[in-house]
């Protein structure tokens, strides 16, 4: 490592007037929603953070004409999706990457029309996990927390590989149903109060 070569600083891009208008709250929500959106597409944490940052920079440099939140959020997602495709990363299974309308509709639903970044669903997931069997929870932890592949999971649980795939898929669908119900219940509760 040569110390004398470490004195170079990349100049930060100058913020535009649009940047000044953007409230801190909006910025944080947009950024966290974008990161999660990119994670959904299949980006790992670092790539998602990098691409979200890039998309936000583009918003500062060349913002869309329309300023309403729905348009801006949708524009950001399009940019993020294009950046993701350019990064040549494999998309997550089941993500309709080629159908921008479907992709956007699914995300709007997921984030309750961009009102949150999907945090409500993440909270609901935590309580829904409790409804699963111990074995299913164990399989999910080994797969998602410890990164075991289907093959390793099959070996660890004494199952066939296809069986572990079915087990995880059933668990995800059960969780999706439970999460949707949980979010609906939460919304109804908020509306009543």
């Amino acid at each position, binding site marked *: 490592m040569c110390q004398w070569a470490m004195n170079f600083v990349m100049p930060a891009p100058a913020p535009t007037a649009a940047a000044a208008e953007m409230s801190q709250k909006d910025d944080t929500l947009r950024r966290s929603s974008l990161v999660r959106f990119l994670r959904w597409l299949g980006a790992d944490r670092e790539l998602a953070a990098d691409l979200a940052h890039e998309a936000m920079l583009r918003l500062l440099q060349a913002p869309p004409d329309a300023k309403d939140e729905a348009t801006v959020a949708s524009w950001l997602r399009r940019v993020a999706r294009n950046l993701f495709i350019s990064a040549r990363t494999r998309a997550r299974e089941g993500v309709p990457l080629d159908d921008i309308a479907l992709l956007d509709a699914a995300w709007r639903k997921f984030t309750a029309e961009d009102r949150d970044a999907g945090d409500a669903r993440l909270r609901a997931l935590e309580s829904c996990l409790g409804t699963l069997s111990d074995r299913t929870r164990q399989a*999910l932890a080994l797969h998602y927390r410890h990164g075991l592949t289907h093959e390793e999971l099959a070996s660890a649980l004494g199952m066939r590989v296809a069986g572990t795939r079915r087990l995880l898929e059933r668990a995800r669908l059960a969780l999706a149903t439970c999460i949707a119900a949980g979010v609906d219940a939460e919304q109804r509760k908020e509306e009543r109060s």
Partner: protein
Amino acid sequence: MNRNENRRVQSSLVDMLLEEHFGEPAVDQSARESAAPQRRLLAGPSLRTHRLAAAALALVGIGVVVAVATLRRGEIDGGRTADGGGFATRGGARQDPAPQDPAPRGSGSEDAPLFSMPWFDDFDTAAASARESGKDVIVFHYFPRNEHAFASDTAYLERMIPRTMRSEDFANGIADKYVLVVFIGSSALAADKSDPERYLELYHRFINCGAPAVLVADADANPLAKIDIYGGAGPDGLPKSKTSAEFIRDVRLASSEGRRLFRAVAKAVRDYEAAASAVGQADGELVLERLAEGVLDLFQETRGSIHRERLLPIMLQVINSENVVLRDRAVLALLRMYCVPPQAIVKAEEIDPENEKGMLDLTTNASMRVGISNESVEHFLGRVDRLLEKGAKDQSILEAVLAKAAELALDVMRDRKRAIGYARQLEGLVDDPAAYARLLDRVLGN
């Protein structure tokens, strides 16, 4: 959206949420308790979020589950698990008792080490283990996330290591010669360590090799070799990963060559320093010159290796040598380094002010390689002007230098006239007329 599509989309969204929910690996208490108590796996709070910890624990987890499942089925055979996995053996390293001699029922049970490749998070603990068994240490050296900015390097290393290590080949190929340690390098972490001074000493020692890196070190914390983790592709063209076999081969080759160079460099430095302290005695200068020649040869040989930095102080002494041949050789060798010490540039200009030996070519080129900040642009352009005034010896160097000077004059100095001057001098030198035309268009403002 039809029903099937909807299911797939919902499943993918939950998949993402589950990754996020489980994404911060918590230390699995049962797995930790089941692992060998005398071994220190990745359990420090600073490492809990690390994927390596997850990978290591995953292997422990596999070992636990496989061993328990196997014991339940009564299929333990000769210390190997029924699926041939290599992690459920006693004593750390894989053992293959005779088939007629089945392992005791307790083999692979809670009090036996289930994971044949322990990962340490403390270098000195790893080194003590390595010293006891006559092994070297493989150091996976990272910066913490978001520090030093090179996220893609760290992310790549994090992806590569679990893939590479999660195999029996890796465990078998590495365990007999190496102990593994993960070293998260950051001065900010020192306060959390039991011995902050020692941690900082190691941090500075490893960071000199660059990071993130996979290093082979001896038990005294001397880095012996740095493994090329990118498979030659560089961080911008990350390959999927190295296979276990490739990784093991690289580690073994690099560590044997690294050990040889380490010894040679240590001897050269020791001898030179001893001779330097004895200068003034009969033949002292001659001995020193002879040793300096050896250092110069070794410096050429260490090109690209982590040992080169250790020879640098002697090289900087040699550039002030009275022996003109040695001095010029040392200056040339230093100017050809990727990161050029400023002393070498100063010395080169001293010994060849009229560029008769082509030193000015080299110093100008070297300045460009080191990197040019906004503050140093004027200095660089001054150097280019001087080179033009004295006449360059090497036209190919001039081509790169002039193109850079034209860009900097335009972009940083906002001096179009000067930029045009550099660009015009490029005419007739360039190999790529289209690139020259583009540059000329730019500086002319077309």
